[in-house]
């Protein structure tokens, strides 16, 4: 049911990322583990301060080495990225693994044409000539659905619309046929119809090339569309994981449940107020003790001895499915049952 029986391509083990700042140590990621197989998509759900972006920057080695302490293991096709040299990482970035960022306008150089930027990545990793790189850039633009690619290849980023810029970024990320693609909220800033086009494009490309994709978003609807497996992050930790069906149909963590029940949908009842999660995302400088979600959790008094504020709940994973909560699974089944019933209709 999970990806453990397929070829594991990326393996993250007990990742810890700490930043030293003037105000103290920020524990951005605090013990994260997951696996990803080729041709599969892992959806990471997280909001501000969940540690999702830091996790991905760490995989690519794009963190600031001077102020960052990283522990744990990141294995890409067997190679440990955390002990790799900068040179080795450079050979992998853009080549074997690449990233699509949220803000395409900020991520593309305004001084170079789209074609030059796409071609640059290609030339660096394959030693191709300018002419070959240009031809490859045109081919990639065509593949991502840019009309008149042989003309648009000489345009600058500001001449592209938001959706087109994102496609250009995808073209740049895929030009060397990477085996791992990390997409960090690539559609959050886009209109809903453009988002649908980009999602279709990524799914088609994955089918054609068998790319492993990590897709970060806070939108559960997007997760439902594109992910095979889901990992929910909160306060730098994984609070729940499983297949998309498992997590969306029967969430096991109060935070996941809270996200689902707080969102307005196109079909839900409109005459009752929404059910927001109280409070705000946690500070990572002074994170809450014990379970990082406990200040916002509505189930803490059901747990004996006030454990939620004193002890960190362990993430118990069986067959790729698990969550980190002090409530017993029976208790959660009972309390969440009302929700589960409404979702099964």
């Amino acid at each position, binding site marked *: 049911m999970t990806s453990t029986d397929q070829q594991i391509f990326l393996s993250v083990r007990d990742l810890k990322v700490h930043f030293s700042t003037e105000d103290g140590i920020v524990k951005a990621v605090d013990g994260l583990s997951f696996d990803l197989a080729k041709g599969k998509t892992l959806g990471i759900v997280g909001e*501000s301060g969940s540690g999702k972006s830091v996790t991905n920057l760490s995989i690519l080695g794009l963190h600031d080495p001077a102020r960052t302490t990283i522990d744990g293991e990141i294995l890409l096709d067997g190679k440990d990225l955390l002990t790799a040299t900068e040179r080795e990482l450079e050979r992998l970035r853009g080549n074997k693994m690449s990233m699509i960022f949220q803000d395409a306008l900020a991520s593309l150089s305004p001084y170079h044409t789209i074609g030059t930027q796409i071609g640059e990545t290609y030339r660096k990793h394959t030693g191709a000539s300018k002419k070959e790189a240009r031809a490859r850039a045109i081919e990639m633009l065509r593949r991502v659905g840019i009309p008149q690619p042989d003309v648009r290849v000489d345009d600058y980023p500001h001449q592209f619309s938001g959706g*087109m810029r994102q496609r250009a970024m995808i073209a740049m990320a895929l030009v060397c046929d990477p085996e791992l693609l990390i997409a960090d909220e690539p559609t959050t800033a886009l209109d809903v*119809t453009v988002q*649908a086009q980009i999602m279709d494009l990524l799914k088609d490309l994955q089918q054609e090339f068998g790319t492993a994709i990590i897709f970060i978003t806070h939108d559960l609807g*997007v997760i439902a569309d594109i992910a095979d497996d889901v990992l929910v992050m909160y306060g730098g930790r994984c609070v729940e994981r499983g297949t998309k069906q498992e997590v*969306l149909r029967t969430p096991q963590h109060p935070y996941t449940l809270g996200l689902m029940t707080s*969102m307005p*949908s*196109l079909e839900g009842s409109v005459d009752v107020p929404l059910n927001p999660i109280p409070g*705000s995302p946690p500070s990572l400088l002074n994170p809450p003790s014990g379970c990082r979600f406990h200040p916002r959790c509505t189930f803490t008094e059901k747990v004996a001895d006030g454990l939620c504020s004193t002890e960190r709940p362990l993430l118990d994973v069986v067959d790729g499915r698990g969550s980190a909560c002090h409530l017993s699974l029976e208790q959660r089944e009972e309390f969440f049952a009302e929700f589960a019933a409404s979702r099964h209709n």
Partner: protein
Amino acid sequence: MSNATPLLDVSGLTKHFPIRGGFPFPRTVGAVQAVDGLDFQVAAGESLGLVGESGCGKSTTGRLITRLLEPTAGKISYRGQEITHASRKQLAPIRSEIQMIFQDPYASLNPRQTVGKIIAGPMEINGVNPAGGREKRVRELLEIVGLNPEHYNRFPHEFSGGQRQRIGVARALALEPKLIVADEPVSALDVSIQAQVVNLLQKVQQELGIAFVFIAHDLAVVRHFSQRVAVMYLGKIVEIADRDDLYGNPRHPYTRALLSAVPEATADDTPARERIRLVGDVPSPISPPSGCRFRTRCWKATDKCASEAPPLVQVEGNKPGHLTACHYPETAETVAAVLSKDPEAAV
């Protein structure tokens, strides 16, 4: 829909932004037709949702209503009084009644002022002195929006995004307005916070009877908050209706496509909603397509669509108050025909 004078009445509202260029003498070489002939009304205490994608002109419309911009053509009436080209002096007494909430909670608060000063600002500018003093009123407002009144002397940077948006709401309420234009009030917020702010706005609307023009691109949020909804495309309203009519029976192809593009957070293998895929990007508002502006992306456009702009009217099969601008409005049959050809392909 009441027959009383609407709180806000907009007809033929147009805003073109001139583009200057040319050599050697700069002259107007074209115009961005941001908003082109809008007609709509907002009744007292009612919430009108304005949805559309980037570049459709919804934010410009919000600024026109609050007279932060002056229309190029058309008419805006507030409580029966025409304010289309009113001067600042003429607008002064009305300004306290029409307030705005902005999208970016980081850019819309002056970082050098305390929260108390920010919220009291509108009162100071308009020379309003509520009974009991301004400070008391500010503390009341902080409580209404769910913030601690003791934080009166804190600065914006000490608050989170969601809290800053609440400060923006408190500021908008300071003068007891009758109409609030909220321009994407929750899009910049984390998902778990959006619901909090939406609930706050609903509470404000219901308890204080304030009318809203709620501008957003999130169709689910708009559905939750608005009684009437208008869909905009490239400067025009393509469909406007009571909420349940719009979401339950969208007659304009663009409305249908927009609704079908919203991803659902369910893990069923068979999608509950049909997916219509639009090809390409929105055309430029500098040279919008002739006739119907949506025709370049519409799967059933004909020559008529290029030569004749469809009027926004109550087409056959619509309930009263439901207006659609299309020569070939959707029916249940036409959608089925579209999907049976190839449900997966871009249409």
